[in-house]
């Protein structure tokens, strides 16, 4: 964009603004009119005193800035000129004689004239070259001149400065520049006082004047070179003192818009001011302006309508409008309009999505009481809930609904007649399982049925809830009969869910990581504490009080830690050795605790399977036995973190690190416990010792025993599903139970006896333990991933759990709990939690992938039993079998994907890509360091220069006096 164009646009805008101010009807005058209009003859004479009053009112609160930098003015001569000028201005003719000077003066307030200049190319650049002075620093951002911009929002960051004053300096009230230039120096107080009494010349004018001083007199005034000393300095330089004194002299109330003087500041400062955010009002005016200057082009239909209204239509007219429309269209397309359309689409998308926003009220409530950190926990639950809804929908649509909707209704009839002989084993096992199961359920009492509900056994076992029931289905369309390959559907649904989860996690994690990555090492702890200390969401007095207290303790603790760190550096060798010994011992202890916990889990699980085979247990005892391992897991998960918390205090870490360490230990336990359970089940059920493959185990199951007693494991996948079902159920019961049976009474006691009983007061109400809660919910989700395959019901259960947790926790947080004394930071923990979620996801995916790829499925149940005639059948066979039926090319491609020839190059490529990004990251780091260094250097330069300036100024002052 050319300079002239920019300027033209700019002045046009300003003109319109001014007009609006004056009540002029802008909309009637077109651009060309504006340009051609003689300002003198049309602008009515303005009442100066009235204007002044208005201005005074408007800018009363703005302090006088940088007055002293204006060069000296001879007061008397100035006034004389002023009066003559004023009298002269009444006649338009005499006015034209000395246009040149005035143009220079008024170029801010009289854009018309400037446009004339532009048009006639008589613009005098003399005063503006040599310094990068854009007219009034309000150059519109690029792309604004002849196209509707993509988005007004960027005006938050770009565009002219705030508070573009609408002062309307009437011309002729400023002294002649040339005369002014020749004036000798005199007291600056005088000039200032004069300005106060009369009209203030715009700073640009003063600045230009000063520039001319430089050129014409060859005498450099330092205030011209570094006019913004006061702005950037901050220490008591001489200029600062002078300003203060002049303020004391009664200039404090002189109104002067700070934006006016940006011609007086350093270029960098000017740039900052130019980029300053504008208030909404200004942005609105600009939008209107833009709309007016770039009205929406009429559509073809509208144009045609106009034409018809006019009367006759000729072919030529039609051709013209078609051509015009096409040109406009092309024009808009080639411009920035596309991004605008995109932007509009974004807004619409957001508005659409807003309709589905739920629980916003709760989030706000929590936020108001606990701050943002607690809110993120609830948002996380909400996010998980949606994830589970997606998983649930996929599972239901691909597996459950087809299973229920399609024939046939028994497994045996689902087999195609041609190769029944091949499925003999599967049929036998299935029949035996079915007979066993129907015998079992027929004799059950109501009590047993209720207990079954808790265990997922009995009547529940052979429902759509578990893996075991599924088999291939067929559907007919016309004469053709197709097979609905349930095994494949299972695999696809499962793969789809995992892929979806993975993508969503990565998306969410990357959002968080973007915020916190890179800042982890270089985080500005103290600035973070102060500048982002207050949570602006807080809206309750009590919460605000708590927050204040939190900030206070946080600051104190952090400072205390720092002092401790200083002491630590001075610590003697013996103390160090002692500390490291303690840490080592505690780590050993933690490992021992973890090992013990895992052993306990495996032991109880083994007992559970063994006791299951005993026939003489009563139902209640059986239920207890069934639940022993899960109760163990839950209790360990509740107790051990507390022990870890106590232990870490002896290790003498920094608070933040100690906290994270404790959390990591707790998470380790959480993730390890279900894995231990699965490992022991695997060992008991599937793993066949090499030496005796025939002694025990049939139908793909080690525990298969051919008798009809209760509690036999006929289908190990379903059994897995049952275990995980129990785990989910117990987790749900315990979590809600803790709140209702421990926290509620505790809260009640505190409320009632908190003031009287010392013991109750000591215990206090339950604190809201955010990290522990997050770990709980992550654990829930990882169980869901683990159990999904064995029980398509589990995603649904997890969804219900999420909803329930949300409400129960909301109740707890808002009514029962109190905020923590020293809560942890939001930022670091967020990405940590996502990392843990990702980790648990990977573990679940890895375990299940291993199972699908290597473990032979049961022959008595599930969609994969049809492959049991193949030796070494695994679940993945369903995929390979399908691929066999593909056309050769597709098959070749698929097979190639599995070969080493494909795999190794891909790995190498990925490694190279990682390396590339790592290098780039390093590069950015280096750049950051360099830039930082540069910033420092510039700061030092500035300081040095300021010192020099002060020195020279002092000398000057000495010389003058």
């Amino acid at each position, binding site marked *: 964009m050319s300079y002239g164009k920019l300027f033209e646009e700019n002045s046009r805008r300003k003109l319109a603004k001014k007009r609006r101010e004056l009540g002029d009807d802008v909309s009637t005058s077109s651009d060309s009119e504006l340009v051609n209009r003689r300002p003198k003859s049309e602008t009515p004479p303005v009442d100066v005193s009235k204007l002044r009053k208005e201005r005074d009112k408007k800018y009363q*609160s703005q*302090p006088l800035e940088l007055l002293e930098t204006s060069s000296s003015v001879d007061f008397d001569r100035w006034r004389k000129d002023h009066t003559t000028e004023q009298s002269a201005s009444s006649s338009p003719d005499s006015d034209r004689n000395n246009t040149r000077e005035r143009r220079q003066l008024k170029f801010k307030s009289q854009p018309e004239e400037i446009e004339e200049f532009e048009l006639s190319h008589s613009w005098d650049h003399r005063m503006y070259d040599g310094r990068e002075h854009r007219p009034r620093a309000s150059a519109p951002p690029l792309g604004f001149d002849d196209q509707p911009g993509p*988005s007004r*929002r960027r005006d*938050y*960051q770009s565009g002219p400065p705030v508070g573009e004053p609408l002062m309307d300096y009437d011309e002729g009230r400023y002294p002649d520049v040339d005369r002014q230039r020749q004036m000798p120096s005199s007291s600056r107080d005088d000039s200032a006082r004069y300005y106060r009494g009369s009209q203030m010349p715009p700073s640009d004018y003063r600045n230009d004047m000063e520039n001319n001083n430089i050129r014409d007199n060859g005498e450099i005034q330092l205030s011209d070179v570094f006019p913004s000393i006061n702005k*950037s*300095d*901050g*220490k008591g330089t001489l200029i600062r003192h002078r300003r203060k004194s002049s303020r004391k002299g009664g200039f404090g109330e002189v109104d002067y818009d700070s934006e006016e003087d940006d011609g007086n500041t350093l270029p960098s400062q000017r740039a*900052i001011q130019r980029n*300053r*955010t504008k*208030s*909404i*009002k200004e942005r*609105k005016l600009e*939008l209107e302006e833009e709309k007016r200057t770039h009205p929406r082009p009429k559509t073809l239909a509208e144009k045609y309508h106009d034409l018809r209204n006019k009367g006759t239509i000729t072919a030529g007219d039609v051709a013209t409008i078609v051509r015009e429309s096409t040109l406009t269209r092309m024009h808009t397309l080639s411009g920035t309009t596309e991004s605008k359309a995109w932007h509009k689409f974004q*807004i619409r998308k*957001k*508005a659409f999505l*807003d309709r589905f926003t739920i629980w*916003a009220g709760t989030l706000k409530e929590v936020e*108001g009481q606990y701050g*943002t950190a607690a809110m*993120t926990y609830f948002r996380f639950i909400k996010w998980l809930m949606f994830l589970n809804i997606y998983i649930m929908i996929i599972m239901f649509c691909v597996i459950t609904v087809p299973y229920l909707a399609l024939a046939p209704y028994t497994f045996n009839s689902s087999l195609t007649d041609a190769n029944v002989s091949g499925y003999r084993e599967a049929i036998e096992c299935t029949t035996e399982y079915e007979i066993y199961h129907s015998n079992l359920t027929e004799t059950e009492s109501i009590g047993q049925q209720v207990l079954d509900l808790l265990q997922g056994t009995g009547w529940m076992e052979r429902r759509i809830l578990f893996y075991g029931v599924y088999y291939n289905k067929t559907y007919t369309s016309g004469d053709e009969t197709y097979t609905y390959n349930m095994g494949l559907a299972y695999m696809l649904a499962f793969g789809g869910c995992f892929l979806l989860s993975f993508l969503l996690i990565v998306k969410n994690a990357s959002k968080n990581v973007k*915020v*916190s990555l890179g*800042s982890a090492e270089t*985080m*500005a*702890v*103290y*600035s*973070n504490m*102060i*500048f*982002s*200390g*207050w949570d*602006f*969401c*807080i*809206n309750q007095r009590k919460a*605000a*009080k708590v927050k*204040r*207290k939190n900030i*206070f303790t946080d*600051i104190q603790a952090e*400072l205390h830690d*720092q002092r401790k760190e200083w002491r630590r550096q001075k610590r003697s060798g013996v103390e160090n050795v002692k500390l490291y010994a303690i840490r080592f011992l505690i780590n050993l202890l933690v490992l021992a605790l973890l090992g013990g916990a895992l052993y306990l889990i495996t032991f109880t699980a083994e007992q559970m399977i063994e006791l299951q085979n005993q026939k003489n247990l009563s139902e209640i005892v059986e239920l207890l036995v069934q639940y022993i391992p899960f109760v163990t897991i839950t209790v360990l998960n509740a107790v051990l973190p507390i022990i870890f918390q106590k232990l870490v205090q002896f290790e003498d870490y920094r608070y933040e690190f100690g906290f994270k360490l404790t959390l990591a230990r707790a998470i380790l336990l959480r993730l390890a416990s279900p894995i231990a359970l699965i490992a022991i089940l695997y060992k008991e059920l599937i793993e066949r010792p090499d030496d005796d493959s025939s002694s025990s185990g049939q139908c793909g199951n080690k525990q298969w025993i051919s008798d009809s007693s209760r509690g036999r494991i006929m289908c190990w996948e379903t059994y897995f599903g049952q275990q995980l079902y129990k785990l989910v159920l117990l987790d749900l019961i315990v979590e809600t139970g803790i709140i209702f049976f421990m926290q509620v009474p505790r809260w009640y006691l505190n409320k009632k006896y908190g003031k009287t009983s010392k013991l109750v007061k000591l215990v206090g109400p339950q604190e809201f333990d955010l990290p522990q809660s997050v770990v709980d919910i992550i654990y829930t989700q990882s169980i869901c991933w683990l159990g999904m395959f064995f029980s398509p019901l589990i995603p649904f259960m997890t969804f219900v759990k999420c909803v329930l947790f949300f409400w129960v926790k909301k109740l707890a947080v808002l009514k029962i709990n109190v905020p923590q004394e020293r809560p942890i930071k*939001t*930022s*670091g923990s967020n990405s940590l939690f996502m990392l843990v979620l990702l980790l648990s996801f990977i573990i679940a995916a890895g375990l299940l992938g291993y199972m699908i790829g290597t473990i032979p499925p049961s022959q008595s149940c599930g969609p994969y039993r049809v492959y049991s005639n193949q030796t070494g059948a695994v679940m993945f066979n369903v995929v390979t079998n399908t691929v066999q039926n593909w056309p050769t090319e597709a098959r070749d491609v698929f097979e190639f994907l599995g070969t080493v020839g494909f795999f190794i190059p891909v790995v190498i490529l990925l490694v190279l890509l990682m390396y590339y990004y790592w290098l780039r990251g390093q590069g950015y780091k280096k750049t950051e360091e360099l830039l*930082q260094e540069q*910033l420092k250097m510039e*700061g*030092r330069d500035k*300081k040095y220069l300021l010192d020099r300036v002060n020195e020279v100024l002092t000398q000057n002052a000495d010389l003058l006096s």
Partner: protein
Amino acid sequence: MGGSQSVFSEQELSDYQELTYFTKKEILHVFKRFQTLDPDSVERDKNAKLNRETILKLPELQVNPFNDRITTVFSSAGDGCMTFEDFLDMMSVFSDNAPKNVKVEYAFRIYDFDEDDVISGKDLREVINRLTGEQALNDEEMEQLIQNILEEADLDDDDSLSFAEFEHVISKAPDFINSFRIRL
């Protein structure tokens, strides 16, 4: 919603939508919140100028230690009074969708108590005092804290933070974007 729908024309709404980070629905919601501050005068004139005391009735601002600065910064007249547009502007800046650099700029102006375009030690002291409220840090702690902050943020050793320095240090303060926020 029907009541407030008629307050603004479709054109006004889409203009506001262009100018802020809000959707139309959210703008109407903001207006509702504005209206609850002083139903009578807003009923009479939707562009009514509410004085600082009325604006501070907004719960978030009521308890905010920097509430007087916020109203001053966002008031277009600079005196703490706010029209609906100022209010909308404020809520827009505090909304989730406002980019970080916009927030940083306003934060800088809020923390710059004496409006000299730098956050000096004095400003820092004021910020800290307002944050901690009744419990004040003792002098030694305060000195240590301010020194720590300046060490982190003040690159040119002039004992005050310019906007560039502030922006830089905020990029290392990951909690900022989460805390400088008011939910609608």
